Protein backbone atom coordinates (compact mmCIF):
# COMPACT_ATOMS: atom_id res chain seq x y z
CA UNK A 1 0.00 0.00 0.00
CA UNK A 2 1.21 3.44 -0.80
CA UNK A 3 -0.27 6.82 -1.63
CA UNK A 4 -0.35 8.11 -5.16
CA UNK A 5 -1.71 11.28 -6.66
CA UNK A 6 -3.93 11.11 -9.73
CA UNK A 7 -4.52 14.29 -11.69
CA UNK A 8 -7.48 13.62 -13.91
CA UNK A 9 -8.95 15.54 -16.81
CA UNK A 10 -12.58 16.31 -16.11
CA UNK A 11 -15.26 17.64 -18.38
CA UNK A 12 -19.00 17.22 -18.22
CA UNK A 13 -20.67 18.94 -21.14
CA UNK A 14 -23.90 19.19 -19.16
CA UNK A 15 -22.44 21.31 -16.40
CA UNK A 16 -18.94 22.50 -17.28
CA UNK A 17 -18.00 25.28 -19.64
CA UNK A 18 -14.35 24.43 -19.57
CA UNK A 19 -12.45 21.24 -18.84
CA UNK A 20 -10.50 21.21 -15.60
CA UNK A 21 -8.27 18.84 -13.66
CA UNK A 22 -9.24 17.04 -10.49
CA UNK A 23 -6.69 15.68 -8.09
CA UNK A 24 -7.23 12.54 -6.05
CA UNK A 25 -4.84 11.06 -3.55
CA UNK A 26 -5.52 7.38 -3.08
CA UNK A 27 -4.01 4.31 -1.51
CA UNK A 28 -2.84 1.89 -4.17
CA UNK A 29 -1.53 -1.65 -4.01
CA UNK A 30 1.70 -2.47 -5.73
CA UNK A 31 0.09 -4.73 -8.33
CA UNK A 32 -2.46 -2.16 -9.39
CA UNK A 33 -2.79 -0.83 -12.88
CA UNK A 34 -3.98 2.66 -13.76
CA UNK A 35 -7.43 1.17 -14.36
CA UNK A 36 -7.49 -0.23 -10.83
CA UNK A 37 -6.65 3.26 -9.64
CA UNK A 38 -9.46 4.81 -11.67
CA UNK A 39 -11.87 2.19 -10.39
CA UNK A 40 -10.88 2.93 -6.82
CA UNK A 41 -11.49 6.61 -7.42
CA UNK A 42 -14.84 6.02 -9.08
CA UNK A 43 -16.05 3.55 -6.51
CA UNK A 44 -14.79 5.15 -3.35
CA UNK A 45 -14.29 8.84 -4.03
CA UNK A 46 -16.27 10.20 -6.92
CA UNK A 47 -18.86 8.15 -8.77
CA UNK A 48 -19.22 10.77 -11.45
CA UNK A 49 -15.83 10.01 -12.98
CA UNK A 50 -16.47 8.54 -16.43
CA UNK A 51 -14.22 6.30 -18.49
CA UNK A 52 -14.52 3.15 -20.56
CA UNK A 53 -13.22 -0.26 -19.61
CA UNK A 54 -14.17 -3.84 -20.17
CA UNK A 55 -11.72 -6.71 -20.56
CA UNK A 56 -9.03 -5.49 -18.08
CA UNK A 57 -6.22 -7.16 -19.97
CA UNK A 58 -5.51 -5.19 -23.07
CA UNK A 59 -7.59 -6.99 -25.65
CA UNK A 60 -10.81 -5.02 -26.01
CA UNK A 61 -9.35 -1.56 -26.63
CA UNK A 62 -11.85 0.28 -24.43
CA UNK A 63 -9.49 1.97 -22.05
CA UNK A 64 -7.04 3.78 -24.31
CA UNK A 65 -6.21 7.12 -22.77
CA UNK A 66 -3.31 9.47 -22.28
CA UNK A 67 -1.28 8.65 -19.20
CA UNK A 68 1.44 11.15 -18.37
CA UNK A 69 1.39 12.37 -21.92
CA UNK A 70 1.55 9.00 -23.58
CA UNK A 71 -1.29 6.98 -25.02
CA UNK A 72 -1.67 3.68 -23.24
CA UNK A 73 -4.21 1.14 -22.16
CA UNK A 74 -5.10 2.02 -18.59
CA UNK A 75 -5.71 -1.63 -17.79
CA UNK A 76 -2.21 -2.66 -18.81
CA UNK A 77 -0.23 0.18 -17.37
CA UNK A 78 1.19 -0.58 -13.94
CA UNK A 79 0.95 2.30 -11.52
CA UNK A 80 4.41 1.43 -10.27
CA UNK A 81 5.82 2.07 -13.75
CA UNK A 82 4.76 5.70 -13.56
CA UNK A 83 6.75 8.07 -11.41
CA UNK A 84 5.34 10.95 -9.42
CA UNK A 85 1.95 12.44 -10.02
CA UNK A 86 -0.13 10.52 -12.53
CA UNK A 87 -1.85 12.68 -15.10
CA UNK A 88 -4.69 10.97 -16.92
CA UNK A 89 -6.31 12.60 -19.93
CA UNK A 90 -8.64 11.48 -22.71
CA UNK A 91 -7.29 10.55 -26.11
CA UNK A 92 -6.36 13.64 -28.05
CA UNK A 93 -7.87 14.50 -31.36
CA UNK A 94 -11.33 13.06 -30.66
CA UNK A 95 -14.17 15.14 -29.22
CA UNK A 96 -14.53 14.53 -25.49
CA UNK A 97 -17.88 13.04 -24.54
CA UNK A 98 -17.18 13.28 -20.88
CA UNK A 99 -14.09 13.08 -18.66
CA UNK A 100 -11.93 10.34 -20.14
CA UNK A 101 -14.47 9.18 -22.70
CA UNK A 102 -14.12 10.37 -26.27
CA UNK A 103 -16.47 10.12 -29.19
CA UNK A 104 -15.10 7.56 -31.62
CA UNK A 105 -17.99 7.58 -34.07
CA UNK A 106 -15.88 9.37 -36.63
CA UNK A 107 -13.04 6.93 -36.05
CA UNK A 108 -15.22 3.92 -36.78
CA UNK A 109 -16.77 5.69 -39.72
CA UNK A 110 -13.30 6.10 -41.22
CA UNK A 111 -12.80 2.41 -40.74
CA UNK A 112 -15.94 1.62 -42.68
CA UNK A 113 -14.72 3.67 -45.62
CA UNK A 114 -11.79 1.36 -46.32
CA UNK A 115 -14.18 -1.59 -46.71
CA UNK A 116 -12.71 -3.70 -43.95
CA UNK A 117 -13.96 -7.06 -45.10
CA UNK A 118 -12.69 -9.77 -47.36
CA UNK A 119 -13.50 -8.99 -50.98
CA UNK A 120 -13.25 -11.99 -53.23
CA UNK A 121 -15.01 -12.51 -56.52
CA UNK A 122 -14.65 -16.25 -56.82
CA UNK A 123 -17.03 -18.35 -54.78
CA UNK A 124 -15.21 -20.31 -52.08
CA UNK A 125 -15.30 -24.11 -52.10
CA UNK A 126 -18.53 -25.20 -50.45
CA UNK A 127 -17.24 -27.87 -48.11
CA UNK A 128 -13.72 -26.77 -47.49
CA UNK A 129 -11.64 -23.78 -46.52
CA UNK A 130 -9.81 -21.62 -49.04
CA UNK A 131 -6.18 -22.63 -49.01
CA UNK A 132 -3.49 -20.26 -47.82
CA UNK A 133 0.11 -21.20 -47.22
CA UNK A 134 1.62 -20.52 -43.81
CA UNK A 135 3.95 -18.04 -45.50
CA UNK A 136 1.03 -16.14 -46.98
CA UNK A 137 -0.73 -16.22 -43.66
CA UNK A 138 2.37 -14.78 -42.06
CA UNK A 139 1.97 -11.65 -44.19
CA UNK A 140 -1.01 -10.79 -42.02
CA UNK A 141 0.95 -10.80 -38.79
CA UNK A 142 1.26 -7.33 -37.37
CA UNK A 143 -2.03 -6.25 -38.92
CA UNK A 144 -4.90 -8.38 -37.69
CA UNK A 145 -3.95 -8.04 -34.02
CA UNK A 146 -5.15 -4.43 -33.97
CA UNK A 147 -7.71 -3.92 -31.21
CA UNK A 148 -9.06 -0.64 -32.63
CA UNK A 149 -8.26 1.23 -29.47
CA UNK A 150 -7.60 4.41 -31.42
CA UNK A 151 -4.38 5.27 -29.59
CA UNK A 152 -2.52 5.57 -32.88
CA UNK A 153 -4.95 7.79 -34.72
CA UNK A 154 -5.25 9.94 -31.65
CA UNK A 155 -1.49 10.50 -31.57
CA UNK A 156 -1.18 11.40 -35.24
CA UNK A 157 -0.47 15.09 -35.91
CA UNK A 158 -1.71 14.72 -39.47
CA UNK A 159 -5.05 13.66 -37.97
CA UNK A 160 -5.06 16.55 -35.48
CA UNK A 161 -4.58 19.00 -38.30
CA UNK A 162 -7.08 17.37 -40.58
CA UNK A 163 -9.55 14.98 -39.02
CA UNK A 164 -10.92 13.89 -42.35
CA UNK A 165 -7.64 12.00 -42.77
CA UNK A 166 -8.47 8.30 -42.37
CA UNK A 167 -5.67 7.89 -39.85
CA UNK A 168 -3.31 5.04 -39.10
CA UNK A 169 -5.82 2.57 -37.64
CA UNK A 170 -8.12 2.61 -40.66
CA UNK A 171 -5.17 2.39 -43.01
CA UNK A 172 -3.71 -0.51 -41.07
CA UNK A 173 -7.06 -2.23 -41.40
CA UNK A 174 -7.10 -1.57 -45.14
CA UNK A 175 -3.66 -3.10 -45.39
CA UNK A 176 -4.75 -6.09 -43.32
CA UNK A 177 -7.16 -6.99 -46.10
CA UNK A 178 -5.09 -5.88 -49.06
CA UNK A 179 -2.15 -8.02 -48.02
CA UNK A 180 -4.42 -11.03 -47.44
CA UNK A 181 -3.80 -13.40 -50.33
CA UNK A 182 -7.48 -14.32 -50.26
CA UNK A 183 -8.53 -10.74 -50.95
CA UNK A 184 -9.14 -9.23 -54.37
CA UNK A 185 -10.43 -5.88 -53.26
CA UNK A 186 -7.54 -3.54 -54.03
CA UNK A 187 -9.43 -1.99 -56.94
CA UNK A 188 -12.44 -1.23 -54.81
CA UNK A 189 -10.35 0.36 -52.12
CA UNK A 190 -8.04 2.38 -54.33
CA UNK A 191 -10.54 5.22 -54.58
CA UNK A 192 -10.52 5.99 -50.89
CA UNK A 193 -6.87 5.16 -50.24
CA UNK A 194 -5.70 7.41 -53.05
CA UNK A 195 -8.15 10.17 -52.16
CA UNK A 196 -7.34 13.40 -50.42
CA UNK A 197 -8.10 11.75 -47.09
CA UNK A 198 -6.03 8.67 -47.84
CA UNK A 199 -2.45 7.49 -47.59
CA UNK A 200 -0.86 10.65 -48.96
CA UNK A 201 -1.97 12.63 -45.93
CA UNK A 202 0.40 10.65 -43.72
CA UNK A 203 3.70 12.43 -43.19
CA UNK A 204 5.61 9.48 -41.82
CA UNK A 205 5.62 10.98 -38.35
CA UNK A 206 5.71 7.63 -36.52
CA UNK A 207 3.76 8.85 -33.51
CA UNK A 208 1.32 6.06 -34.27
CA UNK A 209 4.02 3.42 -33.91
CA UNK A 210 5.12 4.99 -30.67
CA UNK A 211 1.56 5.07 -29.38
CA UNK A 212 0.37 1.58 -30.26
CA UNK A 213 -0.01 -0.43 -27.07
CA UNK A 214 0.04 -3.64 -29.09
CA UNK A 215 3.40 -2.82 -30.65
CA UNK A 216 2.01 -2.73 -34.17
CA UNK A 217 3.48 -0.61 -36.92
CA UNK A 218 0.76 1.28 -38.81
CA UNK A 219 3.41 3.34 -40.60
CA UNK A 220 4.66 0.20 -42.27
CA UNK A 221 1.13 -0.56 -43.41
CA UNK A 222 0.83 2.92 -44.89
CA UNK A 223 4.20 2.66 -46.59
CA UNK A 224 3.24 -0.69 -48.09
CA UNK A 225 -0.11 0.66 -49.25
CA UNK A 226 1.61 3.56 -50.97
CA UNK A 227 3.91 1.17 -52.78
CA UNK A 228 0.91 -0.77 -54.01
CA UNK A 229 -0.83 2.38 -55.14
CA UNK A 230 2.25 3.59 -56.96
CA UNK A 231 2.53 0.27 -58.74
CA UNK A 232 -1.10 0.53 -59.73
CA UNK A 233 -1.09 4.16 -60.73
CA UNK A 234 2.27 4.70 -62.39
Amino acid sequence: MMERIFRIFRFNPETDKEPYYDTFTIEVQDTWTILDGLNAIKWHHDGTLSYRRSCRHGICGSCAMMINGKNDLACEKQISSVKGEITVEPLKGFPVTRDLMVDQTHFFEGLRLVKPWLINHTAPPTDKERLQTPEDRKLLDGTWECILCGACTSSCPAFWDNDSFLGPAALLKAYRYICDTRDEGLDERIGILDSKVGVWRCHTIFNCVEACPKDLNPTNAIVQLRRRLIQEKL
Partner: protein
Amino acid sequence: MRDRGIGSGGVMGWFFQRLTGIVLVPVLLVHLLTMHRYHDHGLAWEQVTNLMINPYWKALEITFLVLALYHAFNGLYALFQDYVKSSGVRLVLFSLTVLGGLVLFIVGVVTVLSIQSPGLVGTAGKVLP
Protein backbone atom coordinates in the same frame (compact mmCIF):
# COMPACT_ATOMS: atom_id res chain seq x y z
CA MET B 1 -15.29 17.71 -38.93
CA ARG B 2 -14.61 17.97 -42.56
CA ASP B 3 -16.40 15.79 -45.00
CA ARG B 4 -14.49 12.91 -46.40
CA GLY B 5 -15.70 13.28 -49.95
CA ILE B 6 -13.42 11.35 -52.18
CA GLY B 7 -11.39 13.91 -54.07
CA SER B 8 -8.41 14.04 -56.32
CA GLY B 9 -5.73 11.69 -55.18
CA GLY B 10 -2.19 12.74 -54.68
CA VAL B 11 -0.09 9.92 -55.93
CA MET B 12 1.64 12.10 -58.52
CA GLY B 13 2.34 14.95 -56.18
CA TRP B 14 3.57 12.62 -53.51
CA PHE B 15 5.73 10.57 -55.81
CA PHE B 16 7.34 13.50 -57.56
CA GLN B 17 8.00 15.16 -54.22
CA ARG B 18 10.23 12.17 -53.36
CA LEU B 19 11.71 11.92 -56.84
CA THR B 20 12.63 15.60 -57.04
CA GLY B 21 13.85 15.42 -53.46
CA ILE B 22 16.29 12.64 -54.28
CA VAL B 23 17.58 14.26 -57.46
CA LEU B 24 17.91 17.52 -55.59
CA VAL B 25 20.44 16.01 -53.21
CA PRO B 26 23.42 15.99 -55.59
CA VAL B 27 22.23 18.94 -57.62
CA LEU B 28 21.74 21.10 -54.61
CA LEU B 29 25.07 20.13 -53.10
CA VAL B 30 26.89 20.96 -56.29
CA HIS B 31 25.03 24.21 -56.62
CA LEU B 32 25.80 25.15 -53.04
CA LEU B 33 29.44 24.23 -53.18
CA THR B 34 30.11 26.04 -56.40
CA MET B 35 27.86 29.05 -56.27
CA HIS B 36 27.78 29.98 -52.62
CA ARG B 37 31.42 30.66 -51.93
CA TYR B 38 31.71 33.44 -49.43
CA HIS B 39 35.36 33.90 -48.97
CA ASP B 40 36.52 36.77 -50.99
CA HIS B 41 33.15 38.50 -50.79
CA GLY B 42 31.26 35.89 -52.66
CA LEU B 43 31.90 34.72 -56.13
CA ALA B 44 33.06 37.48 -58.36
CA TRP B 45 30.87 38.34 -61.29
CA GLU B 46 33.49 36.94 -63.59
CA GLN B 47 33.66 33.70 -61.77
CA VAL B 48 29.97 33.19 -61.99
CA THR B 49 29.70 34.14 -65.58
CA ASN B 50 32.72 32.05 -66.38
CA LEU B 51 30.98 29.09 -64.92
CA MET B 52 27.66 29.82 -66.39
CA ILE B 53 28.80 30.20 -69.87
CA ASN B 54 29.41 26.50 -69.95
CA PRO B 55 26.22 24.94 -71.35
CA TYR B 56 26.53 22.02 -68.90
CA TRP B 57 26.48 24.40 -65.98
CA LYS B 58 23.55 26.15 -67.56
CA ALA B 59 21.72 22.89 -67.91
CA LEU B 60 22.56 21.99 -64.34
CA GLU B 61 21.31 25.30 -63.02
CA ILE B 62 18.11 25.06 -64.99
CA THR B 63 17.58 21.53 -63.75
CA PHE B 64 18.13 22.77 -60.26
CA LEU B 65 15.66 25.55 -60.85
CA VAL B 66 12.97 23.28 -62.20
CA LEU B 67 13.40 20.68 -59.50
CA ALA B 68 13.59 23.11 -56.64
CA LEU B 69 10.61 25.11 -57.82
CA TYR B 70 8.48 22.08 -58.44
CA HIS B 71 9.48 20.55 -55.13
CA ALA B 72 9.01 23.75 -53.17
CA PHE B 73 5.65 24.70 -54.59
CA ASN B 74 4.34 21.18 -54.58
CA GLY B 75 5.44 21.10 -50.95
CA LEU B 76 3.57 24.29 -50.21
CA TYR B 77 0.48 22.86 -51.78
CA ALA B 78 0.78 19.83 -49.50
CA LEU B 79 0.62 22.24 -46.60
CA PHE B 80 -2.52 23.82 -47.94
CA GLN B 81 -4.12 20.43 -48.31
CA ASP B 82 -3.50 19.77 -44.66
CA TYR B 83 -4.50 23.09 -43.19
CA VAL B 84 -7.00 24.67 -45.54
CA LYS B 85 -10.44 23.31 -44.94
CA SER B 86 -12.44 24.92 -47.72
CA SER B 87 -11.95 23.29 -51.08
CA GLY B 88 -12.68 26.60 -52.83
CA VAL B 89 -9.82 28.36 -51.06
CA ARG B 90 -7.67 25.32 -51.77
CA LEU B 91 -8.34 25.70 -55.46
CA VAL B 92 -7.36 29.37 -55.40
CA LEU B 93 -4.18 28.54 -53.51
CA PHE B 94 -3.44 25.79 -55.96
CA SER B 95 -3.71 28.22 -58.86
CA LEU B 96 -1.49 30.67 -57.01
CA THR B 97 1.22 28.09 -56.38
CA VAL B 98 1.21 27.07 -60.03
CA LEU B 99 1.29 30.67 -61.15
CA GLY B 100 4.00 31.66 -58.69
CA GLY B 101 6.07 28.69 -59.70
CA LEU B 102 5.78 29.56 -63.35
CA VAL B 103 6.72 33.20 -62.87
CA LEU B 104 9.78 32.31 -60.84
CA PHE B 105 10.68 29.71 -63.38
CA ILE B 106 10.66 32.29 -66.16
CA VAL B 107 12.65 34.76 -64.10
CA GLY B 108 15.19 32.09 -63.30
CA VAL B 109 15.53 30.75 -66.80
CA VAL B 110 15.91 34.23 -68.19
CA THR B 111 18.66 34.90 -65.69
CA VAL B 112 20.55 31.78 -66.54
CA LEU B 113 20.16 32.17 -70.28
CA SER B 114 21.06 35.84 -70.19
CA ILE B 115 24.66 35.01 -69.43
CA GLN B 116 26.05 34.70 -72.90
CA SER B 117 29.79 35.24 -72.48
CA PRO B 118 32.10 36.20 -69.65
CA GLY B 119 31.68 39.79 -68.74
CA LEU B 120 28.86 40.43 -71.14
CA VAL B 121 25.33 41.21 -70.20
CA GLY B 122 22.56 39.39 -71.95
CA THR B 123 20.03 41.58 -73.61
CA ALA B 124 17.25 39.67 -72.03
CA GLY B 125 18.24 41.12 -68.72
CA LYS B 126 16.58 44.33 -69.64
CA VAL B 127 13.26 42.75 -70.28
CA LEU B 128 12.59 42.25 -66.61
CA PRO B 129 12.94 44.89 -63.94
